[in-house]
């Protein structure tokens, strides 16, 4: 029974992959999670550099907190953000509930600790040698720090890729904040790959679900491949 679904699903899926509807949803996924990644990077990088290169009391506490935040399940984010984003909630005036931007903000919060954690680790692992080398070669403190950040670019790329993949694969926030809205030709649609896959599985329309699943996997694999190539090229 289940095998029938899968075989039939795959063959139908191949036909559906260039369907404009399927493409629209896939592009929305990339857009929403891409924006989330850009936002998260924008606020994570400066803080991470600070955390990675500066020593201050209570630093371990901040790092523990960041690591802890990585474990927050996406439905918890969804629940908390729903309560914040409902129009009569504390952040309701932003108008984020059931919008693409709402999903992006939620995903950005979800991936922030991932980016920070990887970047801080990679900075710290290089910091010692590189900084000392730079200083002995006559660089000042700021230039030395700069050099450390440059050297850990591989780690930063890894962090961004990991964060994007986490965001695009995420369901809880996309569903609870986005609402899986789709109207043909609509401007306010929020259906993305994960929420669509969930919906088609519930509706037992397996071929569409499988087609979207293949695309989602394709995006994730392509992004990983790309990141490996980039890192290899950088080394």
């Amino acid at each position, binding site marked *: 029974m289940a095998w029938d679904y899968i075989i039939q699903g795959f063959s139908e899926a191949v036909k559906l992959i260039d369907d404009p509807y399927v493409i629209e949803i896939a592009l929305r996924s990339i*857009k929403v999670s891409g924006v989330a990644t850009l936002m998260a990077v924008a606020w994570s990088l400066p803080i991470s550099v600070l955390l990675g290169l500066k020593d201050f009391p209570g630093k371990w506490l901040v790092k523990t907190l960041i690591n802890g935040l990585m474990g927050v399940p996406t439905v918890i984010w969804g629940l908390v953000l729903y309560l914040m984003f409902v129009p009569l909630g504390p952040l309701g005036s932003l108008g984020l509930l059931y919008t693409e931007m709402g999903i992006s903000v939620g995903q950005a919060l979800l991936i922030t600790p991932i980016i920070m954690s990887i970047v801080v680790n990679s900075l710290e692992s290089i910091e010692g040698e590189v900084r000392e080398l730079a200083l002995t070669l006559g660089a000042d403190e700021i230039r030395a720090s700069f050099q450390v950040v440059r050297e850990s670019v591989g780690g930063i790329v890894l962090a961004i890729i990991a964060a994007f993949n986490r965001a695009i694969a995420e369901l809880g926030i996309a569903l609870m904040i986005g609402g899986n809205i789709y*109207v043909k030709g609509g401007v306010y649609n929020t259906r993305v790959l994960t929420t669509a896959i969930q919906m088609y599985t519930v509706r037992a329309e397996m071929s569409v679900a499988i087609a979207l699943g293949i695309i989602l996997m394709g995006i994730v694999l392509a992004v990983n491949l790309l990141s490996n190539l980039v890192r290899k090229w950088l080394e």
Partner: protein
Amino acid sequence: MNKRVNTLVLLVLLLTGLSYGCIGSTNGTQTATEKPKVLTISTTTSLYDTGILENVVAPIFKEKYNIELRFIPKGTGGAILDAKSGASDAILVHALPKEQAFMEEGYGVNRKVFAYNFFVIVGPKDDPAGIRGLSVSEALKKIVEYGRAHPDKIVWVSRDDGSGTNTKEIALWEKAGFDFNELKNESWFGTTGAGMGNTLLYTSERKAYTLSDIGTYLKYQKEGKINLDVLVDKGEELINVYAIIIINPKKIPGKDFEDAMLLAEWLTSEEGQKAIAEYGKEEFGRPLFYPAVPVLKSEQGDVFKWILKYGFMKDGDKYTECPEKFRYNATYDFFEFPASVVGG
């Protein structure tokens, strides 16, 4: 090294810009500057799962008024929570007690009844509990009997999600002499906490019984997703009345009252009622919903009385779809009939 990093940064910036440009333009034919108005409607899953809202109502509304309808499918309970939190401009629901409470609290106004169909008890073809053709109460009694005799399998599946269907189910159990909350603790009584479609799939999988709205059942059965028979479909208490309630702009400011009223007006207009009557006819051989307005206008027949009894609110000695105290700047008329019409 430095050169490579610089090239990389440049490349990333270029790609980001490019992809943003591409994706930005995929938003369809509309350009960003002339975005249509958006109206957020919280709806029951039993309406949404049939596809009528996405496939019929939304496209027509967009064409006619350039208003994009954003449907958020949740159970009636979830729809009401969304509305109370200010997320929706109107709600489409089918649970009279919950609707009444919602309006009493001041959240909803100008309720209009626009469609009806029937609930059915569905179950496996071989009907092990032997409920085929019985009255609702008798059938439920048989199911409890059979369930208690088979505590090791799921015999009844309940949505248990605070939806309109769930609200009806609880009332039917009560009428048959059972307490829903007690039944829930028995091992043969399964709950999904999910929408109608999901629940039907699970029920079919477990070869169990459940209460379903006929629309979702027909759609899923026809598409071969489930293997369940309609076993009980007689009884006035199975009528399922759908209504639209507009969010009270005095209670929740900032909602699009006028356009929500436009939707209510269209749903009950001749055009809207016709669209409801047509939906699914070709595909399923019968409509998934029946238009309520012609029945109310005719003032005749059993269905007319049932809609009043199970879908109208009692206001003094009248049955009305919206008691006077819940009306606000209404641009349309409301149906109301003397209580004597329904009789005993």
